[in-house]
């Protein structure tokens, strides 16, 4: 029932979604297009290549998890997927390279000091209810987010807009830094920020006429949360709780109507049911697990795509633990060297995964290919443990000072199966792994937050809007998020501080390369694998070619029946 804990939609935050959705290059491209030269153009939403044979009309039934809400407070990964085909921002991210491209704004340009952005809005955009979109809606959206009644604190990017803080604290009646004129929006920032445009891409514009009288505190309770009105290529028809969400083509969409007339999203709590429906023709598209994928690959009635793995998995420890040598680098290196990733990929994942050696995704611009790795080397692993004074004792388990090297590993129902394959690898170098704590995801994350564990199988979705935050979340101290490894390296912290003030892209890259040299050199984690994301659809339905999962949903207007 609870397959795929870390990757099921309800558990992933929006932020994590952005990490999952392939990000990195975006940032580089962003910096590249920083000041001057206005960016313009009119890409198809999603920007993916459309299948030439796709005709207009028809419906597709797909499997996708249930959103928490379809209003702006959605924190579920699936919510972000859905927003990509029902809503628009001023700008959007082009997949898979994640560059920022125009959306509701036809073009945008920053001032020479990088503190003021001007957006020229597309003319003739309509809301799903037929009303006309205007610059006032954009200003309204920012004020809705920063509203004093909104229980969420100001995000860093929002707080960077001139006047947002005063508005939040009721010292002003509007955000002075957001100026709306006929077809233009001008946004003034307190300080130049390379993250600003990407943060705009996830800010979906809200209809002022519909929400003007709704308090931001109550938005999730408003009917809008179940049947929202946006400007995207599909509109929400009906959401049947626990059953399905139906979308229909918005024929007045400003970039033209989508191919399909209707999309029905069915909600399957158990992946095996979705699989049965896919086989019986009840649904036309779904994501499947590695053990099922080969069947579909060899079946001429289906089309498959292998997408890049979005989550990297690793073993981590509570380094503040004094009983076991978790705080000692050679121990952590030894564990990493004990892991035969090749076998793991071949057996557990049927070859449908990549070996993992880093926190940053190798596709990301921050990734430093030269950062130290600790690949499989059993003999060296044994040597390192011997040198630390942990000698092989009874039953092949190492001992030191009367303590047996036998500690508990916290796993979820998903990672338990993987850990079964890892156990003999650790056992082979003299680490006792029979103490396994199987917990559910909420328990797992709570215990991780407070450091109430010895060791765990941990996962992190990469592909962030800003891949630098992946590194900061794990290697900078103090950490604000739940990764209680206790890791602290003053040099690394100094570099993070330095990066905050570094302006040029080269400087940024140099600093983050160094951070990885140091932190990965400290072997904070023993990396495992990155499972691929496996897409299956019936032949009659044509989907755009994709590199990452988010692209599949973003390219929904190009889906078509042949």
């Amino acid at each position, binding site marked *: *029932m*609870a397959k795929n804990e870390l990757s099921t939609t*309800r*558990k992933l*935050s*929006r*932020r*994590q979604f952005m*990490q999952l959705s392939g990000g990195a290059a975006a940032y580089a491209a962003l910096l590249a297009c920083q000041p001057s030269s206005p960016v313009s153009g009119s890409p198809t939403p999603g920007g993916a290549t459309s299948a030439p044979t796709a005709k207009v009309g028809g419906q597709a*039934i797909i499997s996708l998890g*249930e959103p*928490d*809400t379809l209003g702006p*407070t959605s*924190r579920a990964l699936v919510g972000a997927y859905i927003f990509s085909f029902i809503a628009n921002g001023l700008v959007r991210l082009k997949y898979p390279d994640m560059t920022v491209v125009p959306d509701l704004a036809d073009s945008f340009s920053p001032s020479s000091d990088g503190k003021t952005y001007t957006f020229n809005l597309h003319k003739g955009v309509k809301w799903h209810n037929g009303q006309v979109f205007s610059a006032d809606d954009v200003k309204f959206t920012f004020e809705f987010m920063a509203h004093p009644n909104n*229980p*969420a*604190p100001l*995000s860093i990017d929002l707080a960077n807009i001139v006047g947002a803080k005063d508005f939040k604290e009721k010292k002003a009646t509007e955000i002075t830094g957001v100026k709306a004129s006929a077809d233009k929006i001008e946004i003034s920032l307190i300080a130049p920020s390379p993250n600003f445009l990407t943060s705009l891409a996830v800010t979906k514009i809200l209809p002022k006429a519909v929400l003007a009288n709704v308090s931001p505190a109550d938005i*999730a*309770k408003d009917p809008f*949360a*179940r049947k929202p009105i946006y400007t995207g290529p599909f509109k929400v028809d*009906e959401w*049947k*709780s*626990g*059953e*399905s969400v*139906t979308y229909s083509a918005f024929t007045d969409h400003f970039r033209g109507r989508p191919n399909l007339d209707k999309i*029905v999203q*069915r*909600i*399957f*709590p*158990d992946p*095996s*049911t*979705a699989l*049965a*429906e896919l*086989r*019986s023709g*009840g649904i036309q598209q779904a994501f499947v697990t590695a053990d099922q994928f080969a069947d579909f690959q060899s079946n001429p009635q289906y089309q498959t795509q292998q997408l890049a793995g979005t989550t990297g998995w690793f073993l981590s420890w509570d380094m503040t633990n004094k009983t076991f040598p978790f705080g000692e680098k050679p121990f952590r290196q030894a564990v990493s060297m004990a892991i035969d990733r090749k076998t793991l990929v071949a057996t557990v994942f049927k070859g449908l995964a990549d070996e993992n050696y880093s926190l940053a995704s190798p596709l990301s611009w921050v990734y430093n290919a030269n950062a130290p790795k600790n690949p499989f080397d059993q003999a060296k692993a044994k040597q390192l443990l011997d040198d630390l004074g942990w000698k092989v004792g009874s039953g092949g388990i190492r001992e030191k000072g009367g303590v047996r090297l036998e500690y508990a590993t916290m796993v979820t129902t998903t990672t338990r199966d993987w850990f079964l394959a890892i156990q003999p690898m650790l056992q082979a170098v003299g680490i006792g792994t029979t103490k396994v704590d199987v*917990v*559910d*995801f*909420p*328990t797992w*994350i*709570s*215990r991780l*937050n407070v450091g109430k564990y010895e060791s765990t199988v941990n996962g992190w979705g990469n592909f*962030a809007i800003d891949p630098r*935050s992946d590194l900061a*979340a794990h290697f900078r101290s103090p950490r*604000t*998020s*739940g990764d209680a490894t206790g890791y602290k390296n003053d040099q690394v912290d100094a570099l993070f501080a330095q990066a905050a003030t570094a302006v040029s892209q080269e400087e940024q890259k140099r600093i983050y390369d160094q951070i990885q040299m140091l932190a990965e050199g400290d072997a904070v984690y023993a990396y495992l694998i990155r499972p691929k994301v496996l897409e299956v659809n019936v032949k009659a339905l044509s989907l755009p070619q994709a590199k990452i999962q988010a692209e599949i949903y973003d390219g929904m207007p190009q889906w078509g029946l042949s």
Partner: protein
Amino acid sequence: MIPLVIGVSALSYAVIIFAPGDPATLLVDREQMTAETYTAMRIELGLDDPAPVRYVKTMRSLFTGELRSFRTKQRVVDTIAERAPATLTLGVLAIIFGLVFGTLIGVAQATRPYSRLDDLGTILSLTGFSIPHFWFALMLIMLFGVRLHWLPPSGIRPIGSSDWNPIAMAPYLVMPTIVLGTGLLAYVARFVRSSMLEALGQDYIRTARAKGLRERIVVLRHALRNSLLPVITIVGFILPLLIGGAVIVENVFALPGMGRLAVDAVFARDYPVILTVTIFSAIAVIIGNLISDILYAVADPRIRYG
């Protein structure tokens, strides 16, 4: 009944809040979690009040209908109202299926005791007892949904329909009803068989046969009527089992029912939803028992409640 509900709610509330896992950590972005956003979320969810205060507040808003899900912010009563019809439909169908076929099998066995047919019935009921719901469900889906294409593998009604049209829904409900009702069927068959055997040995049956009544009449009118009495009591206590089974069946068949709502809520640590579903189930069991008591009195003139 009211003290029972209070007892059940207090107990389940305690169980829920003592379960590990903090709802606020699940609702604030893992990566953006700072002391401020976390505290703001805990205040929004009211998690910092002492437990008894939270319990009283929760119960009060439950009875005014204002209790809302942590995750979706929808009124819990609205969500239950959306989800209850599927579970109730399934439950009623499963009970009917179990009673009708269980009785038939039990009667058939009792009239030919220790025959091949009796053995077959015994094997069937033992299998029915022991078969795990999820496995049985998956096997039926594979056979009738995927291989033979006779029945839709999952869902409760055709895509696109929003009403509760019994004819359109019938094919969707066949497999879930069989899976959920099989346990009850096995129970009923065992009960009917043994009480029938007992009844068939009674003096009044010999009298009936001596009068020259046809065997059919003897079995159906004289023996069956008396041996059905204990069956009524089973329905009362099988209700909790049905609710437990519904959790599995609704998940495998992707039915939009309360069992699934409960599972989702548990994984999201959505306290208000868990509590409300638990209370509703408790009330259902209490009412079920009450009905079976009343039916018992109706069916058996010898029983009168003072």
